[in-house]
């Protein structure tokens, strides 16, 4: 299958990989997908594992920066407790789909996740 539908499926694999903690195993798994054409499997095989991991890291880094730009509370939490905030962000990034490029919308997503999980920022 080398159709727009196959490309949509391919895109879902890439998205899953790039928001995961390690994209390389998902790229390997995608190459076993019987619904992907050989050309798309070859494309996956061409990817440099270090480059993939760096890209996933940059996706998370940009989200982190977006959140801190959009939320002064998040920024203050990070200043007070970088380790605690970073760990919370890691969980957030793993559990909440990144649906926005807007700092203020990212803030709302983060605050909703904190409330749902009952997590409170460490006090001063």
């Amino acid at each position, binding site marked *: 299958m080398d159709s*727009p539908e196959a490309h949509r499926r391919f895109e879902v694999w890439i*998205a899953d990989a790039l928001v995961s903690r390690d994209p390389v195993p998902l790229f390997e798994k995608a190459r076993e997908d019987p619904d992907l054409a050989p050309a798309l499997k070859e*494309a996956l095989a061409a990817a*440099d594992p270090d480059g993939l991991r760096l890209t996933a*890291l940059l996706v998370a880094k940009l989200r982190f920066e977006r959140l801190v730009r959009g939320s002064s509370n998040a920024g203050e939490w990070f200043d007070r407790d970088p380790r605690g905030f970073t760990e919370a962000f890691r969980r957030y990034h793993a559990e909440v789909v990144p*649906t*926005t*490029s807007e700092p203020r919308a990212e803030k709302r997503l983060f605050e909703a996740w904190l409330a749902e999980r009952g997590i409170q920022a460490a006090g001063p």
Partner: protein
Amino acid sequence: MVLVGFTLQPEREYCGLLEPLLVEDADYFEVTPETTWVRDGDELFRPNGFWRLFRELGERTGKPFIAHGVGLSLGTFAEDGARLARCLEAIRMSQEAFRFLWYTDHLGATVLDGRAVTIPVPLPMTSEAAAAVRDRLGALQEIVPDVGFENSAFYYLLGKPLEEPAFFGRILERPRTHLLLDLHNLFTNAVNLGFDAEAWLERLDLTRVIEIHVSGGSASEPEWLPSRRVMRLDSHDAPVPEEVWRLLERTAPRCPNLRGVTLERMEGTVGEGDVPLLREELARVRRTVG
């Protein structure tokens, strides 16, 4: 005559420090339209403070704008079209205000299956992917007649690097669709992916180049990757390296339809001490292509 431009970034300190350079040394301003919009959820885009600041600069200096977006996501397949329609509406609004001479975005996808990865990630070099990008550029052309894409900096590729120029050719079939040749991206990819930038350029149709970008970058930290490998980053936070200047010197004279060369710099990376260097870099661009 090839014009020389500089990027406007959404940071007041950056705009303030660089005001004399922008007024005296640049022929045009490059704007990333998304940095001039506010959007909440599914609401329509509306202008933010930088929209007003940049327009005021344009009105005061009489200098034109070009657009270099990042949000159109030229190669996205898995979406219903609503995001794209909103984005095009915001571009239409921006075009009415800024009268961009041309509009480019990055080759790749910044939205995958509805997920905002926000940096351009590579596409498979298939005829389907080329057609998808052509369609998006076609939609953009209904708003801005001259459109194009930039060769992006990718840290991995979904194919062989030296096959990229042929893939570009399959995208740029329509009239008034152009390539923005980013020489720092090319240099970054050549370093990270291990190929010869000159060989890549030999395969490229340079008649399609409307604009060239030059900029600098830095390196990743060893602890970022399990392999501890250090990779070059397209971070726009350092002077233009000599390798990129050499690429500019050799390539610009071979681009017969080149209209502008833009020096890019990221917000948050410019201090007072950097301004003379950036002025000299703009002057060097002008000496090179003038």
